[in-house]
């Protein structure tokens, strides 16, 4: 069984790099290979240009934070954080000072005498983080460290982690299945699926220009419309005719050719309900279509509409709840407009 193959990426020093993927995509296995707990049958891991292959985990000088915290339950907070320093035979005074700094860093001053079972999940995770950072590792590896925390605390810890990472300028390799978390924290993200990296890029690159249908689907939300390319591109934009007869323009995520079956991906917030008949807007610079509002759901910051497009099924449209924006009612006929540049075309047949 091959858990991971074709995973190749370079992480800049001091940057926050995330492996993002659904469970079983091989992200944790990849992290474990870096940590030294799993062994690649082929390939190599380099840190600072030096291969790690011959080194056991304890010689790699990589900090690691686990989802299950793995804070030693029989040791106090102080002894947990002092552990890597004691292993390195640091002097007692130095240990005291550095543990104190680490506690301050994760805002757990005064907790040194407590045992892990007296701490909340979030506090234990901070201890794990302080322990992994206190010996100044070359890279900090984190395996879904916030997965066990509730939503509010997770959001708070995301920002705090990011802050600590920037403050210490430490290189982080982070694993998560939460795309929002990946977008919030990362300088660069590698999206993984079935043991391969689908795309590596900044959060904005991945969101605005997904390289595959999988990335468009997994990262954020996308409407997918199947169609066939008709004719040659004009100014890099292909004309697509959907199965339901809808015509629109879009940008290829990969090189395409006329007559090729494609899937178009459009983000819900890029679709804008507009006034007046759609025909009036047919200028070529903007894609338009007509539909009927099937459902409107108020979600606080925005309203989500399901708009039926007839034979092409339905699309989701997301409109911010702001004065001056058109917010149609259920059952109303509506015209939608969106930019060809925000229409990504993927060859169909691939999954």
């Amino acid at each position, binding site marked *: 069984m091959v858990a991971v193959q074709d995973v190749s990426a370079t992480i800049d020093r001091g940057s926050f790099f995330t492996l993002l993927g659904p469970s079983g995509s091989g992200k944790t296995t990849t992290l474990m290979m870096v940590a030294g707990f799993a062994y690649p049958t082929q390939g190599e891991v380099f840190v600072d240009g030096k291969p790690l292959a011959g080194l056991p985990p*304890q010689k790699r000088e*990589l900090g*690691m934070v686990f989802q299950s915290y793995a804070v030693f339950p029989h040791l106090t907070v102080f002894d947990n954080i002092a*552990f890597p320093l004691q292993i390195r035979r640091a002097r007692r005074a130095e240990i005291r000072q550095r543990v104190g700094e680490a506690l301050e860093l994760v805002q757990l001053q005064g907790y040194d005498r407590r045992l892990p079972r007296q701490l909340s999940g979030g506090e234990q995770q901070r201890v794990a983080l302080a322990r992994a950072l206190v010996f100044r590792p070359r890279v900090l590896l984190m395996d879904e460290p916030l997965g066990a925390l509730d939503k509010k605390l997770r959001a708070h810890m995301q920002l705090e982690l990011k802050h600590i990472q920037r403050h210490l300028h430490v290189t982080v390799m982070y694993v998560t299945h939460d795309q929002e978390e990946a977008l919030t924290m990362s300088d660069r993200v590698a999206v993984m699926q079935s043991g391969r990296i689908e795309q590596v890029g900044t959060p904005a690159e991945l969101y605005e220009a997904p390289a595959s249908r999988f990335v468009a689907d997994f990262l954020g939300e996308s409407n997918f419309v199947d169609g066939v390319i008709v004719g040659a591109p004009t100014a890099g934009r292909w004309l697509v005719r959907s199965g339901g007869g809808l015509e629109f323009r879009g940008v290829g995520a990969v090189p395409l050719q006329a007559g090729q079956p494609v899937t178009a991906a459009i983000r819900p917030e890029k679709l804008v309900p507009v006034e007046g008949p759609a025909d009036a807007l047919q200028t070529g610079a903007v894609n338009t279509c007509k539909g009927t509002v099937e459902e409107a759901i108020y979600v606080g910051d925005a309203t989500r509409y399901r708009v039926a497009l007839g034979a092409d099924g339905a699309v989701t449209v997301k409109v911010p709840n702001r004065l001056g924006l058109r917010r149609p009612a259920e059952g109303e006929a509506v015209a939608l407009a969106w930019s060809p540049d925000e229409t990504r075309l993927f060859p169909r047949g691939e999954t």
Partner: protein
Amino acid sequence: MGEEGQRTGPGAVAVAALAGAVLLFLIAPVVIILIVSFSGADYLRFPPPSLSLRWYQRFFGIAAWRQAIGVSTQVALLTMVFATMLGFFASLALVRGRFRGKGAIYAFLLSPMIVPTIITAIGLYFFFARLKATGSILAMALGHTVLALPVVVIIIAATLQGFDVRFEQAALSLGASRFTALRRVTLPLIMPGVLSAALFAFLTSFDELLIPLFLSGVEVQTLTVRVWNSLLLEVDPTIAAVSSFLIGVTITVLGASALLRGHGETPGT
């Protein structure tokens, strides 16, 4: 779900009665022995006509019985040390290791539980007779180590299986060597299981008859062997006092083990 608390039907009463009868059947001999040991009569009789501590006086008063307690304790302590150490490393290899024939080795380690003890005892007798080592405490302890090993391996392997390997991985990632990780993280965390295994190893040896029956000499006899020999010669309530002593040791050790389990629940994930 809601009916679980109600146990009033005739069927439930019958089940409770049967369970009670089984428990009574199991505990009755122990209770009878205990009562008889406090008998004032000169022979084994139930119920005793009067109560006294004379048989306990006799038991602890005779040098041969006291010696036997000493021998049994030494054999049991040595067995405990040998079996726990061997069993710990065997369990570690069996639970963590990845090698061929793991299942076969596990089965082999557990085989003394299946092989009749008399067979093991005879085998050990011929082995130690050739070495001219029968009658030694060490020989008996080694024999009991064979018997105690399966119990130790089962308990420690189960404890290790329930131990989150990530504690160990965390220790390694923080720079600890394998040995340091074992000593400072794994061992303290699985200590309740190890101690519990040690206590069971002690008990396995302390009340076992067959191995010392073959391996003990004229002068070096365990408590169980002395009970056996005196049963053949004279039956008086001293036997009941000795038995009560053995039961007392067993209950104390099992109680300690239960306390350990309750106190030190192995931390899981």
